[in-house]
């Protein structure tokens, strides 16, 4: 199920502004890869180009190759909805669909892609909510609106919604930045479990979080405002945090910069 993500000289633009420049990196399956770096360094842009979400913004475009198990998702013959079905995403702010119940939110991806069978939907809802550690809290109120949950519960609901379609890669764009420490801990535990089944890529501003949850860490940075973001260093998380090769990485993780 989990697949390898290979970026080859990926460059992304917003209009004429180049947000990231020639990123080349390989993300291993069944692992957690953290993207860290200062604001505006392009880590979210890179993440969003992995499931072709970057191009949703008007005027945005991507150059280069992005291979999912040797298949380039930017090939013109590729169906963008199929890409997004295979590569799930969790956003910075929880975004449950306000008109849907908890149950409907979880199975939204299946139902809107044509799955009608009640037993399939029920099974997917339960297993996804269990995987997202939300089942015990909401099993008695599945028909209530998703917006009525707490922020941390909503984010876990969004994770359940993302994994209900059984993606091969799961992208997380600062999934804990709007949450309190207890909810953050719950999500981090969840991420550690998810890597048994998925390739997880997480953008985070929290360096302890990157150190706690990830196997590999990529450090992105920019020279100065207006420059495109570049990949500075990419290595095992332990190496990045204890013995980085680049001076700039060391400055960033020790707090001397950014």
């Amino acid at each position, binding site marked *: 199920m989990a697949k390898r993500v290979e970026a080859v000289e990926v460059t992304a633009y917003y209009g004429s502004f180049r947000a990231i420049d020639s990123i080349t990196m390989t993300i291993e399956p069944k692992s957690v890869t953290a993207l860290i770096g200062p604001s505006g360094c392009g880590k979210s842009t890179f993440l969003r180009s992995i499931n072709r979400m970057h191009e949703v913004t008007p005027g945005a475009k991507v150059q280069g190759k992005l291979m999912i198990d040797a298949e380039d998702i930017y090939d013109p013959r590729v169906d963008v909805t199929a890409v997004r079905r295979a590569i799930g995403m969790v*956003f910075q*702010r929880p*975004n449950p*669909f*306000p*008109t849907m119940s908890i149950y409907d939110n979880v199975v*939204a991806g299946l139902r809107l*892609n044509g799955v009608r069978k009640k037993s399939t939907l029920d099974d997917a809802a339960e297993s996804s909510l269990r995987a997202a550690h939300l089942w015990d809290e909401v099993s008695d109120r599945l028909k209530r*609106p998703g917006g009525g949950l707490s922020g941390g519960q909503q984010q876990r609901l969004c994770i359940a919604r993302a994994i209900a379609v059984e993606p091969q890669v799961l992208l997380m764009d600062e999934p804990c930045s709007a949450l309190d420490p207890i909810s953050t801990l719950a999500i981090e535990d969840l991420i550690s479990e998810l890597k048994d089944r998925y390739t997880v890529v997480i953008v985070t501003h929290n360096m302890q979080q990157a150190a706690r949850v990830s196997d590999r860490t990529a450090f992105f940075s920019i020279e100065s405002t207006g420059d495109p973001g570049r990949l500075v260093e990419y290595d095992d998380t332990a190496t990045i945090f204890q013995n980085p090769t680049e001076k700039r990485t060391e400055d960033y993780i020790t707090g001397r910069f950014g």
Partner: protein
Amino acid sequence: MSTLSHNGSVDLGSLRGRRLPKAVPPLLGVAALAVSAAGILGTGAGGWVLTVVVAALLFGIGTFGVALAVEGSRKARDRLATIAVYGAFILALIPLGSVVATLLAKGTGRIDAEFFYHSMNNITALDSGGGAYHAIIGTLEQVGIAAVLAIPLGLAAAVYIVEYGRGRLTAAIRFFVDVMTGIPSIVAGLFVLAFWVLIVTPVFNDGRPGYSGFAAALALTVLMLPTIVRSAEEMLRLVPQALREGSYALGVPKWKTIVRVVLPTAAPGIVTGVMLAIARAAGETAPVLLVAGGTPAINFNPFSGNQESLSYFVYEQAGAASQYSPGRAWTAALTLIAIVAILTIAAKLLARRSTIGR
């Protein structure tokens, strides 16, 4: 030492300040009314309207003066502003209350079985009976057809503008929708008269112009469209981009995202806009006058022959030379308002049902 204790301790008195006792503003109000009544009603200088206006002015000035003396100028200005805002609110409600009260007072006279089950066929100026059955049918059919035409068109246009439109075409559509908002209903009626009734229908009608309820519905569609497009557009813009992205991230195609996520989220607001458009259409007289022609008889078929509508019925009866017609006009006006109110309430309930309660 002295400066330290001066800065270190907080003087609670300066934070609390002096406040008017709660009973003072109502007492001032009663006093203002009493003075005003004595001065105006007592001397016969004016009626009760002038009394209330003068009392309100006296109350404002009096409260400002007392508050200025007791609480200081900031509080006094605050109280004056509060009185002004409440005053404006009450002023704005007076026309609404007045219309409803007048309709209820004068419109209930003809609420009887004959009014709702009979037309004006063979009713002369000397007959007391007659009813608006034909007009009610006409209004429901014409507004219903107009809604069936205008709602899908308007929603589709709004979806295009917000979700797909880029560049000049979208700007042009928005501009012309704005222009359409300002079209007087008589012009919409003339357009349908010139185009549909006098040019298109004669082709299928042995060269004779075809006045009909459907022609009126076409004119009402022209009037409803801009209201629906603009209100739906505003509501669609309010749907957070995060919801669309959340749906895209699940591999849901764009059209399905719009139909299943964006439109339901915007539904309550869109319903409000649609109901405003329907209410406006139901109240229009000029297009019906021009292209449906009006008739005293019952005509169920909106596609053939003259048809009446409630607003046109009110217009006719209000000007008819019969002692019984004003009563019919008032009751028809009340019926029209009731129909619009019932439709609005029903639509709001439906919209609330379609989303899920909190």
